[in-house]
């Protein structure tokens, strides 16, 4: 007969250690915290401060922007200098004509710059041009643009249909390939998509090119703050309640407060001292 000696089983049921949770600030959710309480005393000065800071800033920005000179010269419909006197043929019309394929068209725009001082920059302006069209944007080969010599077969497929061309039976790659390059080395025929093209000449300042928007935005926001601040101040002085009033009201009927939008005002320390 087999006799069995079982090893003493370690008791897992009893735990002599106290299970009291640790009384740390973290576990008891009592970490120091900042609890901003919005009261008229803190909000009204903030309104005025924002207004006072923004209005001069906006005025300065607007002044600087206004001092920048910028002239744009639209030459979409400029006259071909080689055109006969009575036809007044524009370059756009000239290039549209199939028989003029491969020809160049020259036109002249007279520019008069007054009070332009310092460096003058030239920009090229287009309207109605979808430079962000997905198939246009990605129609390029980054490696090629980075200067690598690419075999025509290695060029990115995104370049199609401006990837390769065949000349005398051999396949040649476009350099640079793609729709972007294809359009860039053209003086853009813009009539086809109802666009315009122009030359922009501008001076600059420490804040960059001409940009009146920023200054106006600052001015509007600053003025609004001053106006609202003044309105709130009047409301506050005329109809505001003291904190004692709120406490009394709360004690009368606590449940009525469940729908007060900003309950925290009730607890505001020193709320309404201004009116005292």
């Amino acid at each position: 007969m087999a006799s069995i000696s079982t090893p003493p089983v370690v008791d897992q049921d009893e735990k002599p250690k106290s299970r009291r949770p640790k009384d740390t600030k973290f576990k008891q959710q009592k970490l120091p915290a900042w609890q901003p309480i919005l009261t008229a005393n803190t909000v009204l000065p903030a309104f005025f401060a924002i207004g006072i800071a923004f209005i001069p800033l906006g005025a300065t920005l607007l002044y600087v922007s206004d001092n920048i000179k910028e002239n744009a010269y639209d030459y979409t419909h400029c006259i071909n200098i080689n055109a006969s006197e009575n036809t007044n043929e524009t370059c756009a019309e000239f290039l549209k004509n199939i028989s003029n394929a491969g020809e160049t068209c020259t036109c002249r725009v007279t520019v008069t710059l007054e009070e332009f001082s310092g460096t003058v920059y030239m920009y090229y302006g287009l309207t109605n041009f979808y430079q962000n069209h997905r198939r246009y944007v990605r129609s390029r080969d980054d490696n090629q643009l980075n200067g690598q010599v690419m075999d025509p077969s290695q060029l990115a497929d995104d370049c199609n249909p401006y990837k390769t061309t065949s000349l005398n039976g051999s396949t040649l790659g476009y350099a640079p390939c793609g729709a972007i390059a294809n359009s860039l080395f053209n003086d853009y025929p813009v009539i086809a998509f109802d666009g315009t093209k122009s030359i922009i000449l501008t001076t600059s300042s420490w804040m960059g090119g001409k940009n009146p928007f920023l200054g106006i935005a600052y001015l509007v926001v600053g003025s609004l703050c001053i106006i609202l601040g003044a309105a709130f101040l009047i409301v506050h002085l005329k109809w505001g309640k003291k904190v004692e009033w709120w406490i009394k009201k709360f004690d009368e009927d606590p449940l009525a407060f469940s729908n007060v939008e900003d309950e925290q005002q009730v607890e505001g320390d020193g709320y309404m001292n201004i009116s005292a």
Partner: protein
Amino acid sequence: MLLHRPGKGVVVVKCMKHEQPEIRTIHVGHNVCSSITGEEVYIPHKYPHNRVVSSQYTLLTFLPKNLFSQFRRIANFYFLVVGIIQLIIDTPVTPIATILPLTFVITVTAIKQGYEDWLRHKADKEINYRNATVVEKGHLKDCRSMDIKVGDIVRVQINEKFPCDLVMLSSNNQDGKCYVTTANLDGETNLKTQVCIPETRKYRLDTDFEGLEAVIECEKPVADLYRFIGRLHIMQNGQKITRPLSLENILLQGARLRNTTFIYGCAVYTGQETKMGLNSKFKTTKFSHVERRMNTFLIVFIITLFLLSSIFTGLKYWYTTTFILPWYVPPGKDELTTMNVIEDFLAFTVLYYYIIPISLYVTIEIQRVVGSMFFKWDCSMYDDELDHPAQANTSDLNEELGQVEYLFADKTGTLTENTMQLRFCSINGIIYEEINDTLCEYNSSQPVSNMSEHLIEFFTVLVLCHTVRVDHKTSGDTVVSTDSIYSHSGKDYEYNASSPDEKALVEACRKYGIVFHGSRNDHMEVTFQDTMKRFKVLNILEFDSIRRCMSVIVQDETGEIHVLCKGAEIDIFEKVSSGDLQSASKHINQFAKLGLRTLAIAKKTISRIEFETLNGALLEAKSCLQRREKKVLEVCNMVESELKLLGVTAVEDKLQKDVPETIIKLRNAGIKVWVLTGDKEETAINISYSTGHFNMGMKELHLTGNVTSDDCQIAITRLCQTITLSDDGDEYVLIIDGQSLHHVLANHQPALRQLCSSCVAVLCCRMSPIQKAQVVRFVKHLAGAPVTAAIGDGANDVSMIHEAHVGIGIMGKEGRMAVTNSDYAFGKFRFLSRALLLHGHLYYIRLATVVQYSFYKNVAFITPQVFYQFFCHFSQQSAYDSFYLLFYNITCTSLPILIYGMFEQHMLQSKLLGKPAYTSQ
């Protein structure tokens, strides 16, 4: 396969059979007893092996099963679908931006789950390979726990865990008793006594079992821990004896043997079919309201996404047909064909799909887990007495705690301490009061010096009619069952009972010099003023919630047989034929008005012949496998009839600390409190006043004592009229009893709805457990579908804890059933205000902000993308770089809100608790 057993003329046929029979027939120790079953051929059923499989995966199934479970989550699935779309179509954003984070999340989760499963495998292996000892052909044989088969006789040593569900056959104890703790199963740490049937007690040696011819018949496995029905047939001296088997005979897997050197048992349920195995499967899932709202948000956003995509596909084709494509754009698929339209639609979907905050689910999950940790860590919800912190069994319902509109509270053990003390008893028309541990006649502080006949008779019933167990504290800390250690005063006895009332009564008897010493060899031993008397226990009809009483049949030293009965007075009064009923019921009302719990005590003396008839019927009923409960009930009612009323006890149950304050706080926060109790009306009303549930000045509306549905109709109409005719300022409370509620819920729900809406508090008394759940269900379906919470401590509260949106368990004295079935649990009722008003409210504020912010940030992010389409000829060009899209969601914007979601406190804790009105919505 055929097995021939030498020496037995029985052919054993082994075959595979998979369907589960209604009744299991188990040959103990595989000794086939054709004389019992009457069958020539023994066909053993194939039961599952005793292998614990808590792991979910094997090496082979891990990948497919884990991936499947992960992609069932909506966020992952969404990611996957978008990823696949991106791979198929000409995508505007690189698929890497979708697939990379998806792979990352899936891999991390898979590794985590794989590791957890590996741990489970390890734990399973430890259990499955644990040494077990079975008796085979009269010899002990070592085997692994997983090799135990149904029918094996298993030997378990002290402090070992039972390897499977066993029917106890014998123990080293001559009485055939053993002690177990079931902390693993239900969390109760007290010792429980299990017994074996008398006929198998003597098999105490391994070699004995060769001669044992017995068959166990039992139900197919059920998950209910508190149900076991079976019977044992045993051949003794050539005769077949049949004994009923019930819960007291079974040793459950996971329980631990205590204070008993060894036991033998027969395996009946193994492996996944043990009660523990069946119970570990079930987990009811509840979803919080916020989560449901979030899912509707999600659907709205998905619809928005599809709408946006459709609109922009339309715009694209309108634009490309109206304005000719500029010459500088390479030609592409812009013709109006079905394929192109579908592809463009999908391309727009891919472009805008970040409108749905993918990180939301991960953020919320982390936020909730951390939130539930704060719940457990809260020192203010730690219970000193129990040494137990608050417990969050789920983190999915955190914010629901802050949304509770209706609270259903149990009374006993939840509002009260459930520590009972005998205060009064009414014996033979005279009221006695306990003053300073002595029994005095009411209104005289003189202790009763000599016990009269009536008193002795009364206290004899009290001291015998119970199921209290006696534990004796020895010098060490170990508790030894003290069947044989006596002390005259009984001062160092520790009484253990499943019902605190019983404990209070036996303790009261001890104070008056009638000491219960426990039972030994089927005899209860009691000293009456130092004179030992022994009563033979012939049968015990245990308490059940239908009869609401219990009886003990004893034989005293003179040989007379008594039926001793105690129970709820309503039920006892029906069974009483003599005794001073009038004064008893008068006194009961008096006691009830003091908020005391009352029990009626009765007895009768029966002849031996009567006893034999009743006992036979009882045995027969208990041996039934089908409809046993009903048959037992019928016999019990036969036994408990024609009783003589001896008197009434009144037990006080003290209120828990700070209950009125808590209820007032909850009410100030706009939570409607309903008290549901099984107690009688007067007691319940009294407790309601003392807990602040009712206040003086509130007008009581009674909807009680209505026997028929028509009575209820009339009563409700009358009560509604009372309300409409009254002044505006009046506050009403509704009191409704179980019987009326039954009719009202069946036939007059609209009227009850109207009535409840005009009452500030509701008290439901005389409730059965299932009615508690019905009340909760009724309120859940009120207009506006209010969020409900149920709080309770006992097994009778489990149904309502399951039913309510949030179930809260109180760790009380009535076991841990409520706690294990609850969503949140803590030690005392007063912690409720902290749980609901502080934690719940903070959880809600935090989660609401997290959800709204998550949707907001993605709308803000995607809006420029939408407007950008007007500037790129609706060509699905992305305004952002692909990786910017990726990191915006995963890190840049989800981490700050996560920190907010874990720690935000928009108000000081003291303010939330001090002015509960803040938290009302």
